[in-house]
């Protein structure tokens, strides 16, 4: 019988947790309102509220064991939110790089820009397609770009400590195609010169990235003339004139991709079909929004899965910690609970009271963990070798409201499980036995 009840509880739990994962924040608020209303307006509810009040008021006497729940859950939520924030920051940085009104053209079947090669004819043909926005002089807004890598010394490292950075040779229209790129220090590079501008992310990571400084690419000297900010993945790049970069890297007049500004996002279909209908071209077309989204998928998924696995294992640990504390609390108050039941309180208010107490502690833990993660990790910069690029991508961890909510949901779920079993035990203990217990 006891086994059956426990089994039933477990199945109920699994169903509840599965439902809980899907609940949006307003669902949880509605749930809280319903519980509050029940506690205010029904007889049972009022009983539950008063038992809860008694339990909560005794919390101060068992601060030590209560803090096990709070800190245990704060740890789980902190680590979970930090790892998810890493995935979020990474994919946000890449997602922001694209937009619906710019399109990228690469050679067919290329997984990313670095792997693509467009010959000179294609580079000339692409800007003639339909749907591209034009500047005041009637020239299409298209930037044929070359993406290569450069080995540069890492800031703060030894002379031999080199990292890889993505170097993008851009066309002259690039400022119109990518208006989000702003020079924040120095000036733009001059076409035809060995001059570079560096993204602010790259400037933080590599040595010598200040205007006026000379850096060596292979055996050539290039001058850094400016620093730019785009607040996206471009920040991790170095930019120069495509034709000069092409010379240095012996790429001749071939390019990796052409990025164009569309007259209007709705013109994308026309642009795509005009290129695909051209028998001289073998290219893949995508909006940059879609392209960079796809680039971020793999890595972000890996980080997210890692975060959830680590979070789950920690959650199991914290859950047993909570169970332990609440079993101890119930045991310590066994007489008190039995007395309540002897004078006519039913089982339900007792169960609710203990569950609420645990979930309150869990909520505090979740909030502390989420806040800690936010204070320490929001805006924390990290970097990795991004998929589909050849350089380090620097990004900032983003602790968003949605992530904090996820953390609090986890905390409440742990508190729910941690409180349920002790609560049921308290309600089921025979009154006479409990009263006799010391």
């Amino acid at each position, binding site marked *: 019988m006891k086994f059956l009840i426990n089994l039933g509880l477990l199945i109920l739990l699994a169903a509840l947790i599965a439902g809980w994962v899907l609940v949006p924040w307003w669902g949880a608020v509605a749930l809280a309102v319903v519980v509050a209303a029940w506690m205010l307006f029904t007889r049972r509810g009022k009983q539950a509220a008063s038992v809860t009040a008694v339990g909560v008021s005794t919390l101060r006497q068992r601060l*030590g*064991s209560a*803090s*096990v729940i709070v*800190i*245990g859950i704060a*740890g789980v939520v*902190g*680590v979970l939110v*930090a790892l998810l924030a890493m995935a979020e920051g990474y994919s946000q940085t890449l997602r922001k790089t694209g937009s619906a009104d710019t399109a990228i053209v690469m*050679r*067919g*079947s*290329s*997984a*990313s820009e*670095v*792997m693509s*090669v467009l010959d000179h004819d294609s580079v000339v043909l692409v800007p003639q397609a339909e749907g591209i926005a034009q500047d005041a002089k009637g020239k299409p807004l298209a930037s044929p770009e070359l993406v*290569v*890598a*450069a*080995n540069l010394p890492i800031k703060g490292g030894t002379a*031999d*400590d*080199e*990292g*890889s950075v993505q*170097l993008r040779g851009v066309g002259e229209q690039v400022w119109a195609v990518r208006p989000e790129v702003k020079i924040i220090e120095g000036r733009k590079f001059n076409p035809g010169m060995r001059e570079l501008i560096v993204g602010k992310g790259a400037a933080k990571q590599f040595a010598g990235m200040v205007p006026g400084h000379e850096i060596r*690419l*292979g*055996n050539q000297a290039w001058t850094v003339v400016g620093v730019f900010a785009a607040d996206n993945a471009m920040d991790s790049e170095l930019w120069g004139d495509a034709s000069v970069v092409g010379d*240095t*890297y*012996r790429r001749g007049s071939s390019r990796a991709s052409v990025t164009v500004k569309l007259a209007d996002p709705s013109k994308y279909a026309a642009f795509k079909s005009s290129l695909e209908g051209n028998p001289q071209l*073998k290219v893949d077309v995508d909006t940059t929004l879609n392209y960079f989204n796809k680039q971020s998928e793999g890595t972000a998924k890996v980080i997210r899965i890692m975060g959830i696995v*680590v979070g789950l*294992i*920690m959650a*199991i*640990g*914290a859950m*047993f*910690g909570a*169970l*332990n*504390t609440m*079993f*101890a609390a119930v045991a310590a108050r066994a007489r008190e609970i039995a007395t309540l039941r002897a004078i006519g309180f039913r089982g339900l208010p007792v169960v609710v009271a203990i569950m609420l107490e645990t979930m309150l502690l869990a909520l505090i833990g979740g909030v502390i963990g989420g806040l800690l993660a936010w204070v320490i990790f929001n805006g924390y910069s*990290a*970097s*990795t*070798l991004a998929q589909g690029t*050849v350089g*380090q991508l620097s990004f900032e961890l983003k602790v968003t409201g949605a992530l904090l909510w996820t953390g609090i949901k986890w905390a409440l779920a742990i508190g729910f499980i941690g409180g349920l079993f002790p609560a049921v035990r308290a309600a089921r203990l025979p009154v006479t036995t409990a009263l006799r217990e010391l």
Partner: protein
Amino acid sequence: MKYLHLIWAALFRRKTRTILTLVSIITAFLLFGMLDAVRTSFNQAGQSANGAQRLQTGSKLSFIQTLPSSLGAQIAQVPGVKMVTYANWFGGAYQDPHNQVFSFAVDNNYVDLYPEMDVSAAERKAFDDTRTGILVGEKLAKRFGWKLGDKIPMQSTIFPNRQGDKNWSFDIVGIIHSKDKKAGGFYDQLMLLHWKYFDETTPYNQGSVGWYVTRVTDVNQADRVAKAIDAISANSDHETRTQTEQAATASWMKQLADIGLIVGSIMGAVFFTLLLLSGNTMMQAVRERTSELAVLKTIGFSSGSVLGMVLAESILLVLLGGVIGLGLATVMVPAVAAGSGGMLNLPGVGANSWVLGLVLMVAIGLLVGLLPALRAMRLNIVDALAGR
């Protein structure tokens, strides 16, 4: 040792509490084992005796820049060089562009430089004789269900063939086995094709080489040889950068992620929580046994031995949970690696992790037990028996 029975009985005096605490400790050390395996796999990459003997020469400009194939003969002339081979990145994918395969277009003698790769003599000969032949790693073959003698289509995400078509066709003529299965490494996930076939089939390569691999005769000479190799192309338009395989891999891993920091901070959070949790358990255990401890002292146990017993109890608790957790990790890590179909490559939980784990267990046990043990030691018999 003669008190073990007593300590054991005290530990399981409250079964529920001890078991719940044990589960928490088990999960903490399970996590420790898994994360430490990840950390070790990052740290150990390239750190082998064979790795120290091999030099990698790539373009100084960047790793995607190619080198002229004439350089190979010049490198072979450098004193101290035993053997030279070269390779190109092929960027292969099977069926779907997402099924990326580690695939290199290599010179015939590539396998000779990597004694870690085990290819039977007959298969090696078949590879040399078949223009479209490829050698594939054991795990890779298993992942896609390939067999010896299969003809497989393969896409290159970088190089189309002369018809502008991305589809290449290869014959599997040999299987690469990893010599040291425990060492991890990715040799059994490689696919090797002939550089010659590659160069003749794609119009985009034109005789260039991605990187050279050199085996030196004497490890101690590696630095000198590396400098000599770089000197060959100094001031040309294809300057090179030569590093030992160890250094090159370490630099890649460092760029990929600061794994040490991530693992360190997660473990910090976990162990801090664990400290608190088991500390609370021990406090409770000692508090509720106050009168029993007083009885022990009354019948002649010294304060010192009471202290020792409580400490031993907490160490035993953490050790018990820790060993089970780390044992679980030892079993689970290879299972996870196998289950991922070669996507995740983790070495098992090694002796180092076990030693570190055991030291941590004892340290945590001591820390956790210290306060309750001191309390038990200072117990005043009269007060304790009176329940004051």
